[in-house]
């Protein structure tokens, strides 16, 4: 970290310029493509979601369409138990996933940060699920959890459990089963981020601590962990938002079932808009989800102190 900061701190670009003809407009010209794309395909859709949240809008029931005021929101908070169920499940999903990913990701990063024989091959192998998509992860774990030929069958052969059980269709096992599937892909990503930061810890610190007689646990607690603090805060919060928003895995693995047991709020929204065509209500749900995320993002901004000082 210290080294990186030193490299970044260069003298501010001088105001006098050679070469370029219209320096004043140049930066605007350069961010224009990105800015326009984001205005058109992020900002405008966000605004239109807000707009529709105040409308009754359902193409299959055109006679009801029109201004709704806060009807949609009243319905969410007073008459929709499914909203609360999905919100609670989302929270549970995010907390468990991110917590476990942090724990295992940190451990994995610490291990592969050491020097050992076959390190780069080992790294490549344990990191490889990161590249695998949510849908593919689902496909793989559908095969593993299959009641006829999945891992349960072979476990049953060894006398563990019963034949013909499927962990994905039983309400008592579907949550842990889905969590494990997502961990398989999520832990490597966390580990990569943490490993990146681990590499910049100065070795001198450990040697100094060694001379002072600090054991490995104390070195970890007093050198490694404080150094990683920012990276951990950053990746944890990014990850939490990402796990909240992502629907690929659960959509394809469980479809939100059994009996709505694994439906997150975004999944509920997707179902409401795409299957039930209730765009107005889905937009109101989206707005609520957005406010929740905005709250998260403010916490994130606070904790990571992004954009405060430092960068010129």
């Amino acid at each position: 970290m210290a080294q990186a900061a030193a490299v970044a701190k260069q003298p501010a670009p001088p105001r006098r310029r050679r070469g370029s003809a219209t320096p004043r407009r140049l930066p605007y010209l350069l961010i224009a493509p990105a800015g326009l794309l984001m205005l058109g395909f992020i900002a405008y859709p966000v605004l239109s979601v807000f707009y529709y949240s105040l409308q009754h809008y359902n193409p299959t029931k055109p006679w009801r369409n029109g201004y709704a005021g806060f009807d949609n929101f009243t319905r969410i908070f007073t008459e929709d138990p499914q909203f609360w169920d999905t919100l609670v499940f989302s929270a549970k999903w995010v907390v468990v996933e991110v917590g476990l990913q942090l724990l295992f990701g940190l451990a994995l990063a610490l291990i592969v940060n050491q020097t050992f024989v076959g390190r780069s091959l080992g790294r490549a192998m344990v990191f490889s699920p990161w590249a695998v998509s949510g849908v593919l992860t689902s496909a793989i774990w559908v095969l593993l959890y299959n009641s006829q030929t999945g891992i349960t069958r072979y476990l049953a052969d060894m006398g563990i459990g019963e034949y013909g059980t499927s962990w994905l269709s039983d309400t008592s096992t579907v949550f842990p089963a889905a969590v494990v599937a997502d961990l398989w892909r999520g832990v490597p990503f966390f580990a990569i981020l943490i490993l990146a930061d681990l590499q910049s810890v100065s070795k001198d610190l450990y040697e100094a601590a060694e001379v002072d007689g600090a054991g490995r646990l104390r070195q970890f607690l007093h050198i490694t962990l404080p150094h990683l603090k920012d990276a951990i805060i950053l990746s944890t919060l990014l990850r939490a938002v990402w796990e909240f928003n992502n629907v690929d895995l659960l959509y394809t693995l469980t479809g939100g079932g059994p009996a709505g047991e694994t439906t997150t709020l975004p999944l509920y929204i997707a179902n409401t808009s795409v299957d039930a065509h209730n765009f107005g209500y889905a937009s109101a749900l989206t707005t609520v989800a957005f406010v929740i995320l905005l709250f998260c993002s403010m916490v994130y901004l606070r904790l990571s102190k992004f954009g405060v000082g430092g960068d010129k």
Partner: protein
Amino acid sequence: MPAEQSAPVADEPPQRPRKGRRAWDEAPRWQIYLPLGIYLVFTLVPFYWILLFALRPTGSTSLVPWPMTFEHFDKVWNDRSFGTYFENSVYVGLATLFMTTLVALAGGYALARFDFRIKRAFMLALLCSQFVPGALLLVPLFQIFAELQMINSLGSVIIAETVFQLPLSMILISGFIRNVPYTLEEAAWVDGCNRFTGFRVVVLPLLRPGLIAVGSFAFVHSWNHFLFALMFLSNQEKQTIPVGLNSLMSADSVDLGALAAGGIVAAVPVVIVFAFIQKWLITGFSAGAVKG
């Protein structure tokens, strides 16, 4: 960058035979290999499982894929039109890669090298966009693309994927550019380059590892992402690999062999990309992102 710097330095002072271990990076071997081995099993068993299902004949319960068969691949590639999906996915992936890299490079350069009035606001917008869930914007995006007559064209997916890749890519790239000393560019100007040629001749070569990391990221993401293609492309001819995979899963009677073969077809390109970039990925992250 700091990877090389931190490695060598001080000659080891001849110490007394130490009681504790030396630094944290010299744990006893078994403390490395045992947990790593366990984790490796967790990582690799699912991969083995999918390979097993893809290569053994239907109905076999053997735990080794022998006798080996390629019938599942044949079925998936030809009957389930994974050949077409593959082509579409390559097209979407490469187009997203180029668009993201190019647009993010321009924007990242502006953020790294200029002070301008809306810079702070723009940075904030980049960050906030990370909290906008793509899935929640499906309906308005669908309407926009319908308005633009782009439903059922790969262009809609390419644009959507690019837009959602942009913020992070731009933050990463501007981090990389900041790591290139400004004086190098100034020297080029003194030698008669203008801003553009100076950038091309001096900065761009140094950015190569970072650009490869960002580009591969964009490729892998768009290759894997599923929802935009599912929603904007109703025509089967235009579908991408993840959608094809999903349709194999939601079929009434799931053909496990086909599903496994399809999964492997979906995985191969990203595994190749990943093997190629994983060395740069870690340094890329530490240079661009985590620094903040």
